[in-house]
Each structure stands twice: as structure tokens, then as C-alpha cells.
């Protein structure tokens, strides 16, 4: 029985993927029954796997069945010509990476802060700060590199203020983070209007370049998906690998995690809780700001008031969804980026009347995170000392 049970989880996941696949080219199944049945099979296999004790893969199978079935049904409702637009797979992957980039920066930043035991609700504000000062630096400094740097310094400065409040003044971290978000929103909006007025940021500001991998030209799929990504996208992906290595494979990371799990024990063996937390919070602010700078200097090459529009909170969601782990958080960022990319492509669907699917899709990261914190896809357990100020004995 045991050997049979082990196949149920992966099988369920496969069914879930299949449910979405049949509705897309080249098969393009046009009835909802197919995806529904396959999705249900995925959920069923997942449920069985859960009963045999394979909780991890079982839960993934349930999630894959639900998602795949849902996506498949949605896709069958799109008309075929639109589907061709929907499924330029390479373009879709490229779009996913583009949308995921700012989230990756902010989520990794948030992870570093929270691993040290400081909640960072202010990610959104730090991101917005990076977006504004990024474009300001690129405009006045004449180079995108200056822009990204100025943005990161500004985000780090805001994070430093927050760190003083959260670590030294022991102010409630949720209140402090909320204050940061308001201050960043007010300050960037104020300075934006003051400096750029009604005209907005000028066009032609130096932008972060794309990396053209021309040797991939012979493989259209690869070239289409990763051949022309923004430099900062590659940096973000590298950051995931690097942060995972640092946090889980180095003494530095061990200290960081120790401070977040049991600060008193860390202090006892000579790790400075305050220094570690200050560093972590400032680094998190700088990374979130880099994500913001990508938005303004890399992605759209302009700034608008409140242009991050909740992405800091999506990053927070990704961090929780990914269980405070770099690869988990990155996976969640890619999933959320994919849902945004797909929603953009599905936008044509709403022209037939009926509710705008692309708008509704924007709620997906938040709903998934609600499901995650409810413990449906395995419990998300934060670092033990997160949110608790440390008092030196």
C-alpha cells in the first residue's frame, strides 16, 4: 500500500497541471468538463495522498487540482483566437519574470528583516521610496546606476528610521511599519509634485538596460522567454540564490536566524542582537527600494504617485506564502508574477461582457496567502521572536 500511496501526490499534481494544459494549445479543449474532471481528479488524488500520510505532496496536489481546474475552465471560456494571444508561452514566461522582479527584491528583503526578528510591514513604503528616489537619481545624476543607488540609499535611510523605532525605542512594529508606509506615500507624493509638477517625470531618463543573450537566438523559446530580460531581473534571481546560501550556509546567516529565533541565546554566545537587527532591517529597506527602483527606472521609466500600488504587500504575502524561505518566497513571487502576466493576457476575455477577469485575478496573491496562513497548504510558521522587541538584560 505504501508504494501505491507515494504515487498519489505527484499523480495529483500531474492531474492538476493537465487540467490547465488541455484547455491550451495545441489541444484547446472547448468544454469545461475536461478541466473540471481532471482538476477534480487532482484534488481527489491529493486528498487520498493526505490520508496515506504524504501531507506535503498531497497538499500541493490539492492546490494544483484547484488552480489547474480553475485556470482550465477560465481558458475554455476564452475564444480560440484570443487563446493564441494568451499562449505565447515564451512571452508569458518573460512577462512573469518582469512582474516578479520587484516582488523578488522586496520579498527577499522582508525575509532578511523577519529572519532577524523584526516584522517589516513598511516594505511597501520602502519600495515606493526606492521608486521615487531611483528615478530622481537617474534624472539628476544622468545614469540609471546612480538612480538605483540613490533609490537604495533612500530606502535604507527610511529603514534606518524604522529600525531605531522598532529596535531601540521598542515601538510596536506594526504601528512603526504602518507609519513608514504613510510617510513614504506622503513624502514621495509631495516631492514628486514639488519637483515635477503636473508634467510628471520627463521622458528619456536613463533606464536599466536589458540583457540580450543573442547566442540563444537559435532557440526561439529560450530567446523569447529569457533572452531579453532586464538586468535587474537577473540580479533579483541571483539574489535569491545568494540570500539562500548566506542565510542557510554561512555563520552570518546562522547568527541572523539565531537572533530571530532566540535573541537571548544569541546574545549569550556573543552575537549582538541590536547590530544584527539594525543591519538586517537596513538591508531589507535597501532591497525593497531596489525593487521599487526597478519599477520606475527599469520597467516603466517614469514615476507616478503611489506607483507601487500594494506590491510591497504582495511581497509580504509571498514571504509568508513561501514560509520565510528564499526559494519558497521566490516561488511565490513567480506564481504571483505569473498570475499577473496571465491576467494581462486574459484581459481580452472580458471584452465579451461579464466580469473583468484580469481585475479579479489581482486578488489572487492575497487569497492564496489567506489560504496559506489558514494552514491549508501546510502551516506557515514565522521565526519565533518575530515582532518582539529585545531588551538587553
Amino acid at each position, binding site marked *: 500500500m505504501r508504494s501505491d500511496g507515494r504515487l498519489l501526490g505527484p499523480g495529483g499534481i500531474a492531474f492538476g497541471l493537465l487540467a490547465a494544459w488541455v484547455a491550451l494549445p495545441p489541444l484547446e479543449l472547448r468544454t469545461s468538463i475536461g478541466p473540471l474532471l481532471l482538476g477534480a481528479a487532482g484534488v481527489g488524488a491529493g486528498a487520498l495522498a493526505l490520508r496515506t500520510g504524504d501531507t506535503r505532496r498531497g497538499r500541493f496536489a490539492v492546490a494544483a487540482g484547484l488552480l489547474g481546474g480553475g485556470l482550465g475552465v477560465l481558458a475554455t471560456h476564452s475564444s480560440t483566437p484570443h487563446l493564441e494571444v494568451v499562449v505565447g508561452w515564451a512571452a508569458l514566461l518573460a512577462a512573469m519574470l518582469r512582474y516578479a522582479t520587484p516582488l523578488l527584491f522586496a520579498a527577499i528583503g522582508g525575509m532578511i528583516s523577519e529572519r532577524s526578528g523584526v516584522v517589516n510591514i513598511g516594505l511597501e513604503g520602502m519600495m515606493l521610496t526606492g521608486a521615487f528616489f531611483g528615478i530622481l537619481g537617474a534624472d539628476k545624476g544622468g545614469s540609471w546606476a546612480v538612480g538605483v543607488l540613490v533609490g537604495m540609499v533612500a530606502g535604507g535611510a527610511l529603514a534606518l528610521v524604522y529600525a531605531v523605532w522598532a529596535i531601540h525605542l521598542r515601538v510596536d512594529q*506594526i504601528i512603526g511599519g*504602518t507609519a513608514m508606509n*504613510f510617510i513614504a506615500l506622503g513624502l514621495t507624493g509631495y516631492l514628486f509634485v514639488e519637483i515635477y509638477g503636473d508634467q510628471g517625470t520627463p521622458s528619456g531618463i536613463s533606464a536599466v538596460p536589458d540583457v540580450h543573450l543573442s547566442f540563444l537566438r537559435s532557440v526561439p523559446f529560450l530567446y523569447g522567454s529569457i533572452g531579453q530580460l532586464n538586468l535587474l531581473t537577473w540580479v533579483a534571481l541571483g539574489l535569491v540564490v545568494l540570500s539562500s546560501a548566506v542565510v542557510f550556509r554561512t555563520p552570518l546567516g546562522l547568527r541572523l536566524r539565531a537572533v530571530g529565533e532566540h535573541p537571548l541565546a544569541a546574545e549569550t554566545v556573543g552575537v549582538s542582537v541590536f547590530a544584527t537587527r539594525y543591519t538586517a532591517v537596513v538591508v531589507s529597506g535597501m532591497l525593497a527600494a531596489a525593487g521599487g527602483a526597478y519599477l520606475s527606472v527599469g520597467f516603466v521609466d517614469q514615476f507616478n504617485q503611489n506607483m507601487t500600488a500594494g506590491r510591497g504587500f504582495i511581497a509580504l504575502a509571498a514571504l509568508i506564502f513561501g514560509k520565510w524561505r528564499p526559494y519558497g518566497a521566490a516561488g511565490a513571487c513567480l506564481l504571483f508574477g505569473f498570475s499577473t502576466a496571465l491576467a494581462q493576457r486574459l484581459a481580452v476575455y472580458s471584452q465579451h461582457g461579464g466580469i473583468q477577469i484580469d481585475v479579479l485575478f489581482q*486578488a489572487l496573491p492575497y*487569497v492564496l496567502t489567506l489560504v496559506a496562513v489558514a494552514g491549508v497548504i501546510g502551516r506557515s510558521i514565522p521565526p519565533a521572536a518575530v515582532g518582539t522587541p529585545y531588551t538587553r538584560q
Partner: protein
Amino acid sequence: MGEDTTLLGRYRLLQLAGGAVAPLVTAALAFLVGGLVIVATTHKAPWGVYGGIFDGAGLNWLLPWTSGAARVDAGYNLQQTLLYTTALILTGLAVSFAFRCGLFNIGGQGQYIVGATVAVWIGSSLAGLQPAAHIVLTIVVATAAGAAWAGLAGLMQATVGAHEVITTIMLNWTAVWVASALLGQGGPLQGANTGDNPISSDVADGAKLPIVWGDPLLQGLSIGIFVALAALVVYWIVTSRTTLGFGIRTVGASPEAARYAGIDVARSAVVAMAVSGAFAGLAGALDILGWQFRLSVGDVQASQIGFIGIAVALLGRNTAVGVGLSALLFGSLVNGTSTRNLDPSVFRPDLAGNLTVLIQGLVVLFVGADVLVLVLLRRLRRRA
């Protein structure tokens, strides 16, 4: 160590020590820093700018020497300020009530949106209904919807221990996008013939709240303000004079002690969140039936009323009187800096709007710190 390390412990201390002084210092400090920003960026005298905001909010109506046409204008402005105050009292209470139970309801914005969306739905349908019944039905259902939205967070906290800060943030954004889809193109709440600029139908005339001061066509003050004032009284009675309030405050002060005393801690969390959400949902309903009458995707995405409620509650120290007064302060700021009300020769309204957000952030920032100052004072006193 001990009581001053928890947020509520600090608030208890503050209530004993600070009274009205600390909030006043906090607000003054925030306005001072805001003034510095004004001087640094525009070289204008901050008192002139704040004076312009004061007039824009219509607070000069209260001055006996305002007369003639200025007095009429001031009246209009003050009516609008009080409309904002109405909503802010309720979203402030939404944060305060949960606070009393040791829960931080960041989700006032989402609960407000849910209330407003439900209100516009029921208010614009059922046109044949008798007016009083239509109003009551709309308010009750919208309030209940807000309660349910927040209750979900309470339930998740009580059953699986999901942190209410995380769940309410997620519920905020879920509410924003679901409401946007419902009100947007092709959505069930989109009004007829509003193709490219989707907006809901207007609420039926019978469902509009009676106006007590001013012109119904010029956003006069509706009876909603009395509902909000009554909510303050109810809040005071429930928290300080009932078994329910006692239980909730006990859970907030110490869940372990409450459990030992036989109070159902999980149930208290759900009830506290639901009541909080009811306040925010009510705010949404009163805004729709009192003066907005319709809702657009832009309204939903730009609304900040629920978020400002956090600053209102923090500055008001979770007391009924404090919430009322700080709602008036923030209502004046929001209205006084609006493009419509601020004299552009005094200060650019688009700058001033951002100044309001900044001041709000500074208030929240200093609220935390001034509590700490009091804790330090107390320690010094003990040492002396």
C-alpha cells in the same frame, strides 16, 4: 520588563499617566515636522498654510467674526468636514475596538469598502421600497457585511492562529480587487451607459439619508453624523459598562488570565473583530447613503478612510472622546487640503494632499514614541 513590553501594557500606563497631554504633544510634533517640510520645500510660512487648511476645512465658521459670504462658504466647508469626520469616527472605532481585545485591525479599509459596495448594491436596487425601510435595510446589511469580512480574520485567528495583521491586510486587498471587478466594466454593479468610465448606478432617492444642515445637492451634512456620535456612546458603554466589554478588555490585557477566569478567548477574538468590522462597514454605508450616492473603481482604489482610521484610533488612545476629537482633526485635514477647498494662492492643493498623508504618518510614528517617553518618565520617577 513586564507590562511595558506589550503594546497594551503601555497603553494602560499611558491612560494612567498621560491623559490628554500626550496626544496633544504628538499632534503638535507632527504638525511641527510638517511645517518644517513646508518651509524647506516652498519657503512659505507654515502658519499661513495651516491657516489656509483651517479655512478650507470650514473651521473658521466657528469664529464669531466670520461673516457674510465667507460665513456661507465656511458653512459648506464645515459640512463636508463633518461628513469626513462621520466616517473617520467609525473607521477609528473599528481599529479601537479590536485594540481593546489586543488585536490590531489593519483591515478597516477593506471592511469599509465591503460596506460601501454592499450599500451601493442594495441602495440602488429595490427602488420600490418604503424609504425608511430601504435606509435601515441597506445600513443593516452593509454593516453585517463589514462585520463578516472582519469576522473572517477573527475566526482565522481563533481557530488556526493566523495573525490578524496578516489576514486583515490580505482581506483589504482582496476587497479592493473584488469590489473593482464588481464595479468595473461588465461587472454586476456597473451602472447602465457608463461604458468607458464605469461607475455604479445612483442609490434610490428614498435610500438617501435626510440632510440636517445645508443643501442636499451640495453635500450637506446628513444624519449620519448622529449615527457616528451614537456609535461613540455605544462604544463607551460596551467597552466600559458591559460584561462583553469587560471580557474583551480582559482578553486584551492578558489572554491567559482571561482563560483562567473562564472567558472564552477564541470567541472574544471573533466577536471583537466582527464588531470592529461592523463599525467600518457602517462607515461605508453612511458615506454612500449620506453624500456619495454612487461608487466607482477609482473611488474604491483611492479611498484612504479606513487607513486614516488607524491614525485616528492611535491618536485618540482608543477612548470614545479621543476618537471623536481626532476624527475631527483628520476630517479637517483631509477636507481642508482637498483640491476643492484649499485656496490655491495659499498653497498648492496637490502638495497639501500629500502633506496630509505625511502628517498622518508622523502622528502614527510619534504615537508609538511618546508612549515610550512616558514609560521612561515613569522609570526615572521610580528611580528618584
